[in-house]
């Protein structure tokens, strides 16, 4: 379980939120929606151990992320993945990034890496793109490739910043199917968007919880037919 405990953050215009509690159980899918500059990306960063909140802490299975030992953040990052707004990768090809992900995952043998790489790229609609320079891809392709690269390690917690906006609405079916599949495997998915598209296949479990400037909504991780409107 991933928990936010009494989180407080201060933005340029003042306090973004304070005393924010949340608990994401294994197999949950959560959407953080809100206007620009509301702190959605910062919240994802806090969840990924990229920046200490001004108050409170993040806990994974009861182990604090920021008030733990120096090994707490690396240990958390080993089991989590983030698809952020930008990936600073120089002139690397998509295949190079899979190679790096493989190193981060404990040096997966090359044959296995290539097989998983091909399967993941096909899944995100980019078959045979391993040789392309990452930066030369379109924004949607970059976002999908980044998602495939992140999935390579099989993270227990997957954080995504504006995946629908960046990947494109025509890929929402693929994304929601992927989120469901990952949730069935017991993984926690948290993604941030300005707003959920009206026809987004995953429906809210309950009314969202307002937290300062943004709304935190748990989505149905079952099949579309199970969704409640």
């Amino acid at each position, binding site marked *: 379980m991933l928990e936010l405990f009494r989180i407080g953050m201060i933005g340029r215009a003042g306090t973004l939120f304070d005393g924010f509690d949340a608990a994401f159980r294994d197999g949950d899918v959560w959407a953080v929606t809100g206007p620009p500059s509301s702190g959605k990306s910062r919240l994802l960063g806090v969840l990924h151990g990229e920046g200490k909140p001004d108050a409170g802490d993040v806990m994974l299975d009861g182990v604090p992320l920021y008030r733990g030992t120096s090994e707490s953040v*690396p240990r958390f*990052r080993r089991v989590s993945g983030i698809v952020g707004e930008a990936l600073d990768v120089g002139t690397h090809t998509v295949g190079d990034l899979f190679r*790096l992900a493989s190193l*981060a995952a404990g040096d997966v043998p090359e044959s296995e890496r290539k097989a998983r790489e091909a399967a993941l790229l096909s899944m995100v609609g980019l078959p045979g793109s391993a040789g392309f320079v990452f930066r030369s891809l379109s924004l949607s392709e970059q976002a999908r490739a980044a998602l495939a690269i992140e999935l390579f390690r099989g993270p227990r917690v997957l954080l995504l910043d504006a995946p629908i906006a960046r990947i494109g609405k025509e890929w929402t079916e693929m994304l929601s199917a992927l989120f469901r599949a990952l949730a069935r495997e017991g993984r926690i998915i948290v993604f941030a968007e300005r707003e959920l598209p009206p026809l987004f296949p995953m429906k809210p479990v309950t009314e969202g919880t307002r937290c300062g400037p943004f709304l935190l909504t748990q989505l149905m991780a079952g099949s579309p037919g199970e969704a409640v409107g």
Partner: protein
Amino acid sequence: MNKVSLIWIDWKLAGKSLAREWLNRFVMFFLVGGFLLTMLAGKGVNRFLSEQWVVNAVLRLNVSAAEGVGIAAKARKMAAVRSVVYKDPEAAWSEFLADYPGLESLRLEGGNPVPGYLQIRLLPERLTAEDIAAVENALKPLPQVEKVFTGAKTLPRLLRVREWVNLALWGFFLLLSVLLFSVCAMQEASRARALRSDFGFLADRGISPAAIMTGRAAGSALVAGLLALPATGAAGMVISAATVRFPALASILGPVEGVVRSGAFPFVVLYLATVPCLIFVASLYGWRASKFHNPGK
């Protein structure tokens, strides 16, 4: 990713450029190691000087060849003496004629007028004013010895020059070592900068930057140790072959194999142990110079 994998992280991320770097380093280890072996084998310029500096003990005219050989044998037993060559009166006469041709008539009047003599060379490390004085004091009282030429007047100045030259040569070795360290540190910094985004990628995925830093430094040190040994060995073989091919060089350097047997060998071991340590530090310096930081901390 485990610690063993991190040792080879640079090879996995930039194998080709790293291979070129290590080829350069092999050449540098060869040159620095070769210079060190040259210095140890020749004991700086001591061996060259001890080869050139000869104490001559001129025997009296009536000293027989057998007596001369006996005195030479006794001189050889002295601790500071490396070699003694006895030139009997006939050999001395031949040398005299070679140097002053046309004086054959000197012998017609009363036999050989040139006495036999001993050429005494001291050990490189025993070419000191005290040891030369000891040799002179041992030979001078002998009734068969007419005169001992030690060059004592110019010796102190020469020995002072020798010390300065040796100091300058060791200084040059130190300079080479500093140069080696600087080049390696620059290579390490340049590589760390080039791989900064890769390290950032790994750090974002839970590989601790401190573990990357120490892992790649340990890898560099390990490869340095593995390369410094054959590079220094190759330098030793080249120097050894050169001394066989050019005997004049042998008189300056002496046998390189002797370094292994002599008390200088620990210095070679110390050098081979220091190289990996220096490269480890160079790698850490390179990491620091690349200004890599983990955005998460």
